């Protein structure tokens, strides 16, 4: 007599490979399970990559999603963060000549989802740093808020994303410079906010996020451009909610 393990192995292979020889033995009801499983995974991708679907169209998205899910089965029951490799999958796709920005748009959608579900934590307030002596401040490391994501993208993907992410109404025409862009995602009062960054601001937050002290990060940036106003850059990043409150 076959065991429960044997049954599950056989049923799963029939579920995932409808042309498997023994699939027919389950009758037409097997397709109900196949449809539910596929729909479950594709629906999560659709929820997590709304800008990709808007730009590429429903038909392309459905086909791409089906192809993705077959090779990327979820590893756990909570599906909120399912689809982590979808932007890489899009980048490798051969059906996308002429839309070079789509993988980067997917990447921003992904970062948005991560920011949305990240852990709660109080933000750093500028007042927490206001009275600190210069040398204390200089030696300080600031931790990024768990919901903070900093991204650099090509092909003006941020401008494209910002103008197309549902529920916004896309403009009739969008002038695209096809340049690298930088952005910061933060979660403020339970809403994910996207802020455009200058390259230097991106570099600054990125260095701080790696654990570089404020002093070292400032020095490195000023070597590149002595005119940078680091105090203003730090104030902007704090104002956007990029950092976690300092534990005192």
């Amino acid at each position, binding site marked *: *007599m076959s*065991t*429960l*393990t044997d*049954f*599950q*192995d056989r*049923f*799963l292979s029939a*579920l995932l490979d409808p042309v498997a020889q023994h699939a027919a033995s*389950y*009758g*037409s*009801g*097997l*397709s*109900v*399970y196949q449809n*539910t*499983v596929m729909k*479950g*995974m594709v629906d*999560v991708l659709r929820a997590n990559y709304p800008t990709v679907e808007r730009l590429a169209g429903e038909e392309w998205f459905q086909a791409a999603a089906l192809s993705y899910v077959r090779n990327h*089965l*979820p*590893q*756990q*029951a*909570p*599906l*909120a*963060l399912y689809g982590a490799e979808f932007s890489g999958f899009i980048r490798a796709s051969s059906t996308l000549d002429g839309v070079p920005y789509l993988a980067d748009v997917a990447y921003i959608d992904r970062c948005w989802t991560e920011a*949305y*579900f*990240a*852990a*709660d*934590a109080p933000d750093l307030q500028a007042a927490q740093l206001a009275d600190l002596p210069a040398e204390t401040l200089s030696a300080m490391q600031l931790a990024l808020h*768990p*919901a903070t994501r900093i991204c650099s993208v090509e092909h003006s993907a941020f401008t494209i994303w910002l103008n197309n992410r549902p529920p916004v109404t896309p403009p009739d025409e969008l002038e695209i410079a096809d340049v690298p862009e930088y952005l910061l995602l933060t*979660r403020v009062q*339970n*809403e994910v906010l996207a802020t455009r960054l200058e390259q230097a601001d991106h570099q600054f937050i990125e260095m701080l996020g790696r654990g570089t002290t404020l002093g070292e990060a400032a020095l490195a940036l000023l070597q590149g451009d002595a005119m940078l106003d680091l105090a203003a850059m730090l104030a902007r990043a704090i104002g956007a909610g990029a950092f976690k409150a300092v534990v005192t």
Partner: protein
Amino acid sequence: MNPTADVTAGVSFKVEYFDEARSCAAAGLWYEIHAENYMVAGGPRLAMLDAMRAGHPISVHGVGLSLAADAEPDRTHLEKLRELLNRVQPFVVSEHLAWSGWRGNYLPDLLPFPRTVAALRRIARNIEITQDFLQRSILIENPSLYVQLDHDYAEAEFLSELVQRTGCGLLVDVNNVYVTANNIGSDAVTYLKALPAGAIGEIHLAGHTPDQRAQIRLLIDTHAEPVAEAVWGLYQQLINRIGRCPTLIERDDNLPAFTELMTERARAATILHAASHTERRHVHAH
């Protein structure tokens, strides 16, 4: 106040309904959430849940524990579930007689299995592990079935065995009973009569959709339609037999206006009010 003393009919909570659901003051109203949707680190979804539970009793309904897999429940999943239960303090916790996780993969569906002696032993053990870990009893829901398998036990008999061996309760999904009876050729009335009345801690009512493509007319448990009249009829018979029992109008797809769902909910509440009061041992106060 004992928030469960007067719990009657509830509805599925969906984020789309947040404002109306939170402010709705209907007597005995409660909400059910799918556990896995709230197994996230933080953010607005959990904030919404906190706001909901402040005003209404909540039931936590798991879809991903995979109790009918030939393996012990995933420890990480159990830990996340326990964390969620600590946060929500639900009046009832339920899972399915089905599997979805296998060899490191998770399939988002409730998959069938042959009800054998070995399966009974395995699933009873998995329910015990879960109840020990969570330090509370859970309800087990009957699945909707679409394929014929070789079973040693009838489903109602299998569920009764699980109740006896583990002390778990039952969540009776009347629509699933109806859908399965149609798809597999069993008898819904006989099935419902065979369930141990005292173990039933919750009832689900949902809508189904006929599958147009299949050669045999299958009914699919889509939760995308209003509850069918035939299912209301079975529900009335079940309540006549077992007395009052928390009942959920379950809707997951093709969401109607909240008021429309509340109209169905009122119909269940009316049936419950007319029924005799019965203590439900698997339903807990805070």
